[in-house]
């Protein structure tokens, strides 16, 4: 049993230490794995706002992950082919600048989350799960047949996008970018959780009637949470595409949505560090078990089952049970 702060610092510090050790030992592939952890964590931190704080079991967050990915892919594609991007009313040039791509990715995924949220949040429970899934599947099938951008073959980006002052092709530098963004998102999550918004959102999850009787609208709280959540997962999608220098419809697939939920359940729902612990476990299992057996996901399933049955708070809950209370 350790304190929550200690657990958070250990996990985040551990991720950084692994990347730095890999740099010293000249193991670029390990740095890439650590980068993958950071990006999946970021995507799951986004989902954790909706799922953990808001209690919204979105089975469609791949929609935002994919939108972020395609925002990057399309902008970079037009930049590398020197073709303008036709938006109907006007055309814009593509770009290889990460900050611009991130902004576009976040705005587009926030807009998508607003539209999906407006429709899906009218329902709850299984219906909410199914509707969010259905939206993500719509994007999936749309990109499958979107031949302008590679259809089911996806889109390759030859050179990783740039960030002012850094060489993003150097693995540790790209890791650094993802790591800093992850830390910023974790900090945002922490502030949100304890801010008035977090109190209202958490109350709307636990006792929606109470929230209404103090004059607040649970629906609006959830919608704002869903939009913030989608924007962060969208940003993670743009980074993921940059990591692989490749986007394809699989970013929109329901497996992706499911994986993000699994990460959070493994790590600890609504726990700040839950998504990071989940992503570490996931990537480690994927890499090591995946190397030994094609059926590694069965073992992942067994672990998940054990956690759901015996450790509802996930790994974070086992290591540092949540204390409630304040001064």
């Amino acid at each position, binding site marked *: 049993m350790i304190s929550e702060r200690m657990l958070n610092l250990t996990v985040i510090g551990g991720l950084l230490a692994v990347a730095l050790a890999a740099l010293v030992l000249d193991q670029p592939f390990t740095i890439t794995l650590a980068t993958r952890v950071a990006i999946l964590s970021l995507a799951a931190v986004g989902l954790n706002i909706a799922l953990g704080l808001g209690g919204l079991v979105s089975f469609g967050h791949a929609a935002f992950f994919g939108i972020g990915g395609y925002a990057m892919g399309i902008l970079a594609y037009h930049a590398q082919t020197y073709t303008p991007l036709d938006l109907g009313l006007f055309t814009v040039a593509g770009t290889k600048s990460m900050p611009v791509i991130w902004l576009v990715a976040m705005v587009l995924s926030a807009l998508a989350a607003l539209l999906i949220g407006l429709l899906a949040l009218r329902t709850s429970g299984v219906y909410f799960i199914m509707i969010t899934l259905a939206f993500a599947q719509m994007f999936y099938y749309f990109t499958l047949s979107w031949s302008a951008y590679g259809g089911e073959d996806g889109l390759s980006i030859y050179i990783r996008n740039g960030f002012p002052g850094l060489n993003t092709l150097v693995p540790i530098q790209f890791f650094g970018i993802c790591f800093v963004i992850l830390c910023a998102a974790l900090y945002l999550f922490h502030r949100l959780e304890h801010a*008035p918004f*977090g*109190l209202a959102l958490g109350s709307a999850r*636990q006792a929606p*009637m*109470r929230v209404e*009787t103090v004059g607040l609208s649970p629906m609006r709280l959830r919608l704002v949470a869903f939009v913030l959540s989608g924007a962060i997962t969208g940003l993670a999608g743009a980074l993921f595409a940059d990591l692989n220098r490749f986007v394809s419809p699989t970013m929109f697939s329901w497996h992706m949505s499911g994986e993000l939920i699994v990460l959070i359940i493994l790590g600890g729902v609504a726990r700040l560090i839950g998504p990071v612990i989940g992503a570490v476990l996931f990537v480690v299992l994927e890499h090591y078990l995946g190397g030994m057996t094609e059926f590694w996901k069965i073992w992942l399933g067994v672990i998940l089952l054990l956690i759901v049955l015996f450790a509802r708070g996930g790994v974070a809950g086992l290591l540092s049970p949540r204390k*409630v209370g304040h001064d």
Partner: protein
Amino acid sequence: MTEPILETRGLTKSFGALVAGDDISIDLRKGEIHAIIGPNGAGKSTLIQMICGGLKPDAGQVRLMGRDVTGDSTASRARAGLGRTFQISALAMENSVLQNAMLGAMGALDHPWRFWRPVLARSDLRDRAEACLDRAGLLELRSRRVADLSHGERRQLELAVALTLQPRAFVMDEPMAGLGAGGSARMTEVLDALRAEAPILLVEHDMDAVFALADRISVLVYGRVIATGSVGEIRANAAVREAYLGEDA
């Protein structure tokens, strides 16, 4: 006579063949406690839900300070001045007592669209919340998790949250239920003083409390108000004795 603070006109509600509210017209005037009594399943909670916005009446009107609020959401009725407590506590169980009270203060004094500063550092909300917890006798337990409270303590917290709203009218569904004799007496004292701030529509099974507190009593049976009057009138009413007091008291 001045305008009633809260008024229902012909509220009617059926669930299939069951008539849970039948042409209910009652009012709540400044400074009074108006008790609603009636046997289990009479439709008391249904009436409260129609007043507060959880249930849409099939017919009739709810008026708050002269304004028709029948079409308004629960949240907007709360902002217009309805302070409600639930028969079955509706509290955020994982949160602390103080956090639950501060949610009320946030609803009354501010909006939830603040994403950065910790809510517990908001001294304006905290002061209001703690003052109301104190009045409900819960200040000592402010950092306790609601899930760890006794049933009676949750009733007290229900009251405290309603107090944070400083409503124009209180609507309370069985605030005494499960309090025990001592708790009931204390709650009776609190409600007695409270009517000077805002009138109370009080649904309650505890007849001692009702007779001690009520300025007026309405008796609800099978969704219909069969009598309204002072404590003395209701006690003397033959139909009431037969329909309700006769079997219960």
